[in-house]
């Protein structure tokens, strides 16, 4: 280590359920260079200071969505957040807000996985097609309708940003709604009526109070708030017009 070596304090929220009654903070002194991300900072801690520190990561390039943390209270991908932007102040890293902590910075995402399954995140074909009928063709507009909502990496930053999810964890939430919308507006899909039951339900879009922070923190510009709001309109129309239309998934 040269004399020029800068060090930064990283404060980590620790929690080992087998021995800690509740989460507590621990501060580490971490040598860093200007190109080091917060993720690399916590990796340094694990490699050299305390091997018991747990966190998730994989791609280190904002693709896999596994390294989300609260960084100074803001949900962010730790691999695309840089230590130099906090220096010389201390950086505080915590598990994503609004989720149960499994261990240190690792959250329990089972609730989200269930939601993801419940939206049927795959194309439900409108009709049976034979191979001979060939591939589906889509116009650029048809692609445009859903493309942005298909870039979600399930990082859950939007859930950590959503105060309504914080109050009611049964709310289907931003990313699941965006993904649901992605399939509903796909010209190849015929599963809208089934998925709308979820949108219309008490777990659905009306939990949202149009805060918009989800879209602000989204690293992939999915704009989940937009999907939620479009579906408030869809759902309200369905609510009032269902008596006119004989079909529709209304209960």
């Amino acid at each position, binding site marked *: 280590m040269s004399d020029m070596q800068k060090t930064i304090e990283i404060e980590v929220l620790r929690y080992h359920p087998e021995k800690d009654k509740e989460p507590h903070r621990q501060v580490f002194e971490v040598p860093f260079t200007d190109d080091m991300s917060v993720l690399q900072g916590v990796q340094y801690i694990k490699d050299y200071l305390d091997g018991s520190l747990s966190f998730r990561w994989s791609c280190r390039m904002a693709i896999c969505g596994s390294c989300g943390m609260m960084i100074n209270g803001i949900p962010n991908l730790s691999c695309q957040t840089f230590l130099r932007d906090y220096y010389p102040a201390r950086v505080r890293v915590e598990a994503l807000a609004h989720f149960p902590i499994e261990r240190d910075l690792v959250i329990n995402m089972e609730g989200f996985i269930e939601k993801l399954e419940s939206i049927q995140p795959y194309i439900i074909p409108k009709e049976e097609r034979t191979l001979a009928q060939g591939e589906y063709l889509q116009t650029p507009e048809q692609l445009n309708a859903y493309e942005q909502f298909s870039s979600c990496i399930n990082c859950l930053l939007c859930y950590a940003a959503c105060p309504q999810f914080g109050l009611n964890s049964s709310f289907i939430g931003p990313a699941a709604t965006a993904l649901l919308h992605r399939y509903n507006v796909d010209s190849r899909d015929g599963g809208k009526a089934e998925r709308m039951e979820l949108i219309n339900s*008490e777990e659905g879009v009306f939990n949202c109070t149009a805060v918009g922070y989800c879209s602000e923190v989204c690293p992939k510009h999915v704009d989940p708030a937009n999907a939620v709001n479009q579906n408030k309109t869809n759902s*309200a129309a369905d609510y009032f017009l269902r008596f006119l239309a004989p079909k529709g998934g209304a209960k």
Partner: protein
Amino acid sequence: MKAPLKRSNAPIFWALFGAGGMLSALLGPMLVFITGLAVPLGLLLPADTMSYPKMLAFAQNFIGKGFIFAIIALFLWHAAHRIFHSLHDIGIHAGTGAKLLCYGSAMLGTLIAAYALLAIGF
């Protein structure tokens, strides 16, 4: 498996909230200006714009009645919904009681407005 989905009746409140929000955004500032500034200070408008006979005639006219009713009722429903949802933000985790209080007062205001407008005759 999870409990079956129950349809939310939120669209009713959301629609009233949305309609009230739209109306207040479009007309609110103008109404504040007319009733709060222009008439009391005698700006722009004739001095008797809001005189009793004129306002009575307005409230007895069908369209005037509808206008007054929509303004009062929808503004109230908008406010009730906004206040109810803002309670969370100031740390009050509102339950059924707060819901009843918020939407109940909007309902009460709506009924009083309807009653008064009908009582005043045509």
